[in-house]
């Protein structure tokens, strides 16, 4: 186990390094950000001065090595437009995105697995059919459109929920600002979290249904029933436990995707998370923030995959994390 984790960490460092190089060169290739950064009234001398002050006058490799040596000391550079540490900016925004992604995952899991089970157990019933029809909508409707419609219905027309923004935050463990602790905060959270959850909800419903459907035909289920076990025990333990492995994998992978791609929901709902920061930074060509953001996301993906691998072995005793192959 320990060897596995160490090996994974070493691979991760290589991935991060390659990633940083790619992004750095990519953003560099888009062009010099100075024309969009500087006030148009500035003359040539001021331009030159601003370019020098941001270190953009140096050749690419020199800029990259400056970045790397900073990164080794935990400093991913300063945002061009905010003058504060890029990593600090991202960490400041991260709780908002995490809160949104976790809420969305919870909604998807809490609704998706039971609905999927139901659809799997009664594939030809009215409930099963309508659940499956609904899940198609969840797949196919574009997020921004659903988001706007949610706003139109629940905020503009019914006035039940606020149209955008994040509610007041309180500190969790005296450290992390979260908004779900207050009623107002919860009200702000409902629409964006639902919006973000829809796709995963549909995915989980379909996955659970397919798994249930398949498991019901297996011998061990028939055997359990023949033994005279209660239906609830057959479904709740024998079936559910066996179909959980693909579901956990997907939840894990999708959680990363939720964090990375919460951008659309964050823009529609003016949710002050990391995704919105990325969009703003791309508009400014604020390279330090773009690079730092993508590194953080890659790091999160690596972490999530590690957690998923470890969860596997807990769920299924047959899966043993191999010490030799990694």
């Amino acid at each position, binding site marked *: 186990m320990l060897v596995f984790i160490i090996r994974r960490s070493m691979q991760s460092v290589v991935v991060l390094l390659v990633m940083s190089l790619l992004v750095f060169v990519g953003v560099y290739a888009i*062009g010099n*950000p100075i024309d*969009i*950064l500087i006030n148009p009234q500035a003359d040539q001398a001021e331009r030159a001065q601003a370019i020098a002050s941001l270190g953009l006058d140096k050749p690419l490799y020199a800029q990259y090595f400056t970045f790397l040596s900073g990164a080794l000391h935990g400093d991913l550079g300063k945002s061009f437009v905010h003058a504060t540490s890029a990593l600090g900016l991202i960490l400041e925004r991260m709780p908002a995105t995490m809160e949104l992604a976790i809420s969305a995952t919870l909604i998807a899991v809490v609704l998706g697995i039971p609905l999927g089970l139901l659809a799997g157990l009664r594939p030809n019933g009215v409930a099963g059919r309508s659940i499956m029809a609904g899940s198609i909508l969840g797949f196919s409707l574009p997020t921004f459109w659903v988001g706007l419609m949610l*706003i139109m219905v629940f905020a503009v027309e019914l*006035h039940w929920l606020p149209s955008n923004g994040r509610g007041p935050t309180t500190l969790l463990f005296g450290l992390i600002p979260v908004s779900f602790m207050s009623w107002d905060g919860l009200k702000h959270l409902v629409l964006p979290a639902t919006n973000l959850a829809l796709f995963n909800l549909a995915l989980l419903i379909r996955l659970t249904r397919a798994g249930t459907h398949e498991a019901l035909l297996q011998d061990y289920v028939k055997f359990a029933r023949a033994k005279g076990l209660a239906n609830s025990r057959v479904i709740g333990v024998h079936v559910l436990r066996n179909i959980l492995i693909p579901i956990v994998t997907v939840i894990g992978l999708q959680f990363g995707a939720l964090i990375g791609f919460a951008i659309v929901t964050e823009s529609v709902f003016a949710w002050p998370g990391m995704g919105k920061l990325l969009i703003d930074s791309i508009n400014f060509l604020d390279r330090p923030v773009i690079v730092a953001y993508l590194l953080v996301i890659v790091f999160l993906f690596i972490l999530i995959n590690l957690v998923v691998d470890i969860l596997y072995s807990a769920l299924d005793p047959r899966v043993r994390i191999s010490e030799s192959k990694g």
Partner: protein
Amino acid sequence: MRISLFRRGLGALAVGAALAVLPSAFAADLRIAIAADVTSIDPHFYNLFPNNNIAEHIFDKLVQMDPDSKMIPGIATSWKTIDATTWEFKLRKGVKFHDGSELTAEDVVFSIDRVPLVANSPGRFTAYTKAIVSKQIVDPYTLRLKYAAPYPLAPNDLSTIYIVSKKAAANATTDDFNSGKATIGSGRFKFVKYVNGDRVELARNDNYWGDKPVWDKVTFRIIKSEASRVAALLSGDVDAMEGVPTADLTRLKADPKFNITSKISHRVIYFNFDFLDRSSPFITAKDGKPLAKNPLQDIRVRRAISKAINRPAIAERVMEGQAIPSGQLVSATLFGNVPGLKAEVFDPEGAKKLLAEAGYPDGFNLTIHGPSGRYVNDEKIVQAVAQMLARVGIAAKVETAPMGPYSARASKQEFSFFMVGWGASTGEASSPLRSLLATYNTDKGLGAVNWGRYSNPKVDYLIEQAMQQVDDENRKIMLQRSTELAMADLGLLPIHFQFSMWATAKGITYVPRTDEYTLAFQFKPVKG
């Protein structure tokens, strides 16, 4: 796509929208949706519109601009030249900073000195301070600024420099301003809170020296998505918004629960021509072969393009009436406007004739470039122009990109015919003339945004003369004359002045501004 879907949604549901806040409940708080990100509270860190918009509330300046971009007294009650190169500013007495200390000439000098020193700035305010050779504090309420040469724009320049408290801001970093530690101004509002990417909160300064605002508390919400901004207003989550999308204009105007105010902005939307002597990168003959000569160097071709563009149609249809066709650089109320210099009349036949005379009877292929999401309806304008050019034989394609990569290429002369916008932020014509039409000259600091590389020595001479002409009447004539010359050459191609639009909940009005700022103290509750 997004907008039209949303309009359909609006159509169905706007009727049902009720206002959460009734006029009687307004008294205390004002919530405003703003369209762009505030990157910092430090008023000298970054000369960026949304940052300045917030600074306007917290800090004072020597000279203020009224809604028509005319200079009015701020901290300085009067200003005059005392010799050819020295300006004297008399300061208002008894002005108190938010911490209770008095604002004196010391603070003004400190603020001017701080401008070039702010660390890691992506765009300083030095354009407005670097001409100052020395500063002399005659007494706490008299300040003299010495320039190397006669410098008529001193008051205009100082209308951009925010005055911070020397006591609070000495050695302060930009982070100290963002946290509020150093954010001590003398303006109408005190700083309360800044949440990056989300909001800025301000509270009324009850000791303000001028008219006190009616709002106890003001919250600026940063909502970049147009549709979400409109939804926030419709749902009553905000009381006012800037940057009303033209697509939603008709709907909001028809709804009695909302007011729309608009005003012609100081921003001119124009096209640059490639003036370089080369085979222009995005122009080819009709058969796709490169042209040996750059046709845009020929005034007849430029004139033909100008005649081919139906500006009133763009203003009416693309802009939904929220623009005025233009034939020059600054609008009628601004200093240096040329009365009677009108937009080119739409004349496609004349355009074809001129093209034939110039040796292009069948036109040529052209790719037009433009920014996306930077100016009001920018992509649609470029598309409309392309269609209009196609009608006179110039087969035009359109390529647009976000402003970042777009401007990086445009400034390297990689385009042939491309759209830009320019806001005359000092409120007069020398701003666009110096930056857009003066010959590109690094030593003199002229023509920095002359991306088409237009050059006319007569225009340069007049601009340079005007820059040293302290007498307002003479300077105005020189600015007008140089504008006329450059426009006769079609050094660039003005399209229109865009309008800025604000929408407010019924019961609140806004005094709209030429400089596009959204200022909380200009929102007023309507009695009754």
